[in-house]
C-alpha cells in the first residue's frame, strides 16, 4: 500500500524527515524506545510516591511534597483520591505506555526486520503513524492529571459502575486508550505482514530466531484481543458521555440518590470484555521478554537453544490458549461450577507451555560455556524471577485457593515478579545487548554490573514480602496499606522495608541512566560489527550508525537455523545464518 523509495536514496533527508517523521524502522524503533523509557521512569516515579504513602501513611512526602497542588497533596500529605489516581495510572502507564511500546514498538521494530533480512517494515508510513498515535495517546494520558479532579482513579481495570461515575479523568483515560489501541493494532498488522511477507531467501519459519517468533505471536495477540476492549471502551465512553447504561443495572443508589439512568446493563459485561484483552495482554508483556532472554542465552552459552522446535510449538500453543483463560480473573464475581471448571482447566493447561519454555531455557545452560556479560546476567536473573511469578499464578488459577488470595497483595506480588524482575530485567538485558548494534558503542560494564546487582536485590526486597502480606489477607489498592486492619498487624511492618527497597531500587537506576546517555557518545567503540559473535542476521546488517541508510548492502540469503554455535568440526564457535 505504501511505496517508500525516499529513504534509501543516499542523499540527506531533512532533520524532520529523518528524526521526527521518519519512516525508517530503526529510527522509529529508537523513538519508541526513548518514549517508552521515559514513561517507564514516569510510572516508576508515580509508584515511588505510592510506596512512600504505604510505608508512612499520613506523613508528608519529603523534598518534593510541596510541589503538588492542594487537591492532591495538601501540605505534602497525600489524599486518597490522589493515591487512587497514582495506582490506576501506574498500572496503565507501565503496561500500555512503558513495557509494551518498549518490548514491541522499540525492540520489535528495530530488530525484527533485521533478523529476517528485510529492508524495512512492510508498511513504513503506517509504522510512523503507529508511533505518533502512541505518542498522542501518551500525551492524553499524561494530561489527564491536569483536568479537574485529576486522572482516572478506578484502577487500571476501570471496573464500572465506579468508572462510570468517576470524574473526567476517566474519560481522558478512555480516549487515551483509543489511541493506544489504534497504535497497537496498526503495529500488529505491520509486524505480521512483515514477518509473513518479507522474510529473506532461505529464512523459513523454523529458521526464524526465537525473538522474531515471539514478536509474531505477540502481534497476533494484539491484533485479535485488543478490539473487544476497544468495543468495551466505546460502550464505557457512551455511558459516560451520552448517559447510556451498558454497565449500569437498574436501581442504583449512589450516596443516597437514585441514579438517573435507564438501567438494564451489566457491570460484568465490562469485566468479560476487559479480561478478554487483558489476559492475552499479560502474555504480550512476557513473551517479548522471553524472546530477548532466549537470544542472549543462546549467544552467551555459545550453544544452540535447547529444544528450539518444542519451544516454538509451546509458544504458539500458549498464544492460542491465552484467549480462553480470561475469566480466571473473575472467579469471585459469583461464577458457578460449570464455567469455573472450564477456566480452571484452561488456566492449568496454559501453565504447561510456560513450564516447557522455561525448562528449555534452563536446559540450554547444560553443557554451555557461559560468558557472564552484563546482558547475560540480566537474562539469567529473568529465569528464577519469572519462575517465582509464574508459579504463584497456580494458586490463583485454582478457584478455591483464589478465594483468600483474590485482590490481595499476593496478586500484586504474583504479577510484579513477572513484569518487574522478569520483563523489566529482560528489557534491560536487551538494552545492554543491542546497544552496540544501535550506537556502535558498548555500555559500560562496571556500571552495568552495579545496576544489575542493585536491581536484582531490591526488586526482591519490594516484592517478596507481598506474598506474606497477601497470605495474611491484606487487600491491594489500600491508601494506607491496610494499617487499620487487625489481621494485618503482623505483616504491615514490612511496608517500610519494601518502600525503602523501592527507594534504593531508584538509586540503583541512576548508574543505568548515566551509563545509557554517557555511552551513546562516549562509550567504548565496537571493534567489530558483530561484537558478541552472534549468529542471527541483525549482526550481519549494515553497521549502524549511521542510521537510515537501508539495512543490508545486498539481500542476505539464509543457509541455516538461528543458533548454530559450537558446531562440531567447525573452526569458529559460531556460524552466522547467512554464511554459506
Amino acid at each position, binding site marked *: 500500500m505504501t*511505496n517508500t523509495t525516499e529513504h534509501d536514496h543516499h542523499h540527506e533527508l531533512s532533520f524532520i524527515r529523518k528524526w521526527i517523521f521518519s519512516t525508517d524502522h530503526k529510527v522509529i524503533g529508537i523513538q519508541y524506545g526513548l518514549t517508552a523509557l521515559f514513561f517507564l521512569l514516569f510510572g516508576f516515579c508515580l509508584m515511588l510516591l505510592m510506596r512512600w504513602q504505604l510505608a508512612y501513611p499520613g506523613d508528608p512526602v519529603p523534598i518534593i511534597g510541596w510541589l503538588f497542588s492542594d487537591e492532591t497533596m495538601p501540605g505534602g500529605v497525600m489524599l486518597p483520591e490522589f493515591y487512587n489516581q497514582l495506582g490506576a495510572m501506574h498500572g496503565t502507564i507501565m503496561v500500555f505506555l512503558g513495557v509494551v511500546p518498549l518490548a514491541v514498538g522499540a525492540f520489535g521494530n528495530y530488530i525484527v526486520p533485521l533478523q529476517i533480512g528485510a529492508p524495512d517494515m*512492510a508498511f513504513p508510513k503506517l509504522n510512523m503513524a503507529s508511533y505518533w498515535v502512541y505518542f498522542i495517546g501518551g500525551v492524553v494520558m499524561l494530561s489527564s492529571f491536569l483536568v479537574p479532579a485529576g486522572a482516572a482513579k478506578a484502577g487500571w481495570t476501570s471496573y464500572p459502575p465506579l468508572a462510570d461515575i468517576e470524574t473526567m479523568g476517566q474519560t481522558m483515560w478512555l480516549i487515551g486508550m483509543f489511541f493506544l489501541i489504534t497504535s497497537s493494532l496498526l503495529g500488529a498488522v505491520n509486524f505480521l*505482514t512483515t514477518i509473513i511477507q*518479507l522474510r529473506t531467501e532461505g529464512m523459513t519459519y523454523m529458521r526464524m530466531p526465537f525473538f522474531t517468533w515471539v514478536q509474531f505471536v505477540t502481534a497476533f495477540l494484539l491484533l485479535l484481543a485488543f*478490539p473487544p476492549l476497544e468495543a468495551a471502551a466505546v460502550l464505557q465512553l457512551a455511558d459516560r458521555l451520552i448517559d447510556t447504561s*451498558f454497565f449500569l443495572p437498574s436501581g442504583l443508589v449512589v450516596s443516597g440518590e437514585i441514579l438517573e439512568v*435507564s438501567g*438494564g446493563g451489566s457491570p460484568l459485561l465490562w469485566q468479560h470484555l476487559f479480561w478478554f484483552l487483558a489476559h492475552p495482554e499479560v502474555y504480550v508483556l512476557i513473551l517479548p521478554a522471553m524472546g530477548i532472554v532466549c537470544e542472549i542465552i543462546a549467544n552467551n552459552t555459545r550453544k544452540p537453544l535447547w529444544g528450539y522446535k518444542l519451544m516454538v510449538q509451546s509458544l504458539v500453543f500458549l498464544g492460542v490458549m491465552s484467549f480462553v483463560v480470561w475469566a480466571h480473573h473473575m472467579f469471585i464475581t459469583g461464577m458457578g461450577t460449570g464455567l469455573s471448571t472450564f477456566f480452571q482447566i484452561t488456566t492449568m493447561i496454559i501453565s504447561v507451555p510456560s513450564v516447557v519454555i522455561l525448562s528449555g531455557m534452563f536446559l540450554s545452560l547444560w553443557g554451555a560455556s557461559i560468558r557472564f556479560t552484563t546482558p547475560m546476567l540480566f537474562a539469567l536473573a529473568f529465569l528464577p524471577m519469572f519462575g517465582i511469578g509464574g508459579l504463584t499464578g497456580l494458586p490463583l488459577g485454582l478457584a478455591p485457593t483464589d478465594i483468600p488470595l483474590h485482590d490481595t497483595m499476593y496478586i500484586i506480588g504474583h504479577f510484579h515478579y513477572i513484569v518487574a524482575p522478569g520483563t523489566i530485567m529482560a528489557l534491560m538485558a536487551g538494552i545492554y545487548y543491542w546497544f552496540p548494534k544501535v550506537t556502535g558503542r558498548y555500555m559500560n560494564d562496571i556500571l552495568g554490573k552495579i545496576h544489575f546487582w542493585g536491581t536484582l536485590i531490591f526488586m526482591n526486597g519490594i516484592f517478596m514480602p507481598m506474598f506474606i502480606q497477601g497470605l495474611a489477607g491484606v487487600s491491594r489498592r489500600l491508601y494506607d496499606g491496610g494499617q487499620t486492619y487487625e489481621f494485618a498487624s503482623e505483616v504491615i511492618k514490612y511496608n517500610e522495608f519494601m518502600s525503602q527497597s523501592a527507594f534504593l531500587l531508584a538509586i540503583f537506576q541512576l548508574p543505568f541512566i548515566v551509563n545509557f546517555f554517557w555511552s551513546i557518545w562516549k562509550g567504548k567503540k565496537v571493534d567489530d560489527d558483530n561484537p558478541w559473535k552472534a549468529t542471527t542476521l541483525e549482526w550481519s546488517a549494515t553497521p549502524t550508525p549511521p542510521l537510515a541508510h537501508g539495512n543490508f548492502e545486498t539481500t542476505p540469503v539464509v543457509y541455516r537455523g538461528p543458533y548454530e554455535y559450537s558446531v562440531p568440526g567447525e573452526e569458529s564457535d559460531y556460524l552466522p545464518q547467512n554464511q554459506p
Partner: protein
Amino acid sequence: MEIPYTVHPRPDTGVTNAKVGIWLFLASEIMLFGGLFSAYIFLRMGAPEWPGTTMSGHYYASASDILSVPLAALNTVILIASSVTIVLAWASLMTNNFSKYRIYMGLTILMSFGFLIVKSIEYSTKFEHGLFPSESTFLAIYFVMTGLHAIHVIGGIVVNAYLLGPGAKMWKTNPTQYTNRIEVAGLYWHFVDIVWIFLFPTIYLI
C-alpha cells in the same frame, strides 16, 4: 533497497503485502464488531426488559415498531449496490478502462453519502420522538452499533475519495499498484457491507 512484494505477490504465499495487511486489519475488525455483537447478546439475555417481550403483563413495543425497517432496508439496498459498484470499479481498472472506473467509483461514493443521509434522517426522527440512547439499553446499543458502523462508512468515503481524487495520479505511474489499492479499498468496503448485513436483522428485525 525497495520493499519487495508491493506490486507482485510473494511467490510462496501468493499474495501481496497489501493483501495480507488488509485481511489482518479486517480480522481485527471482525473481533471489534464481534465484541459488540457479544455485548449485545450478553445485554439482551440478561436484560429485565427488551423490545418485543412481555414482562409482568406489560408488552414492550418490538424493535421493528421502534425503528424504521423501510429506511434500514433501503440502506441495505444502497450498501449492497455500492458494494457492486466498487467491485465493478476494480474490474474496470483490470480491463484498463479508467473512465469507466471513475464513474463506478464516483457512484460508490455517492451511494455512501446516500447511506449516511438516510441514517441521519433515521437518527433525527428518533431524536424528535425523544428516543435517545439514554432511553433504554436497546436504543443505546442501536445507536452505538449503527453509529460505529457509520464511522466506518465515513472512513470508507475518505479512503475512496482520496483514491479517486489525489491518489489517482498513481494510475499513470504504477497502474498495477493502483489497481491493487482499489482492490484493497474494495475489500474494506465489502466488509462494511457485511457488517451491515448482520446489523440489519439483529437490531431492526428480531
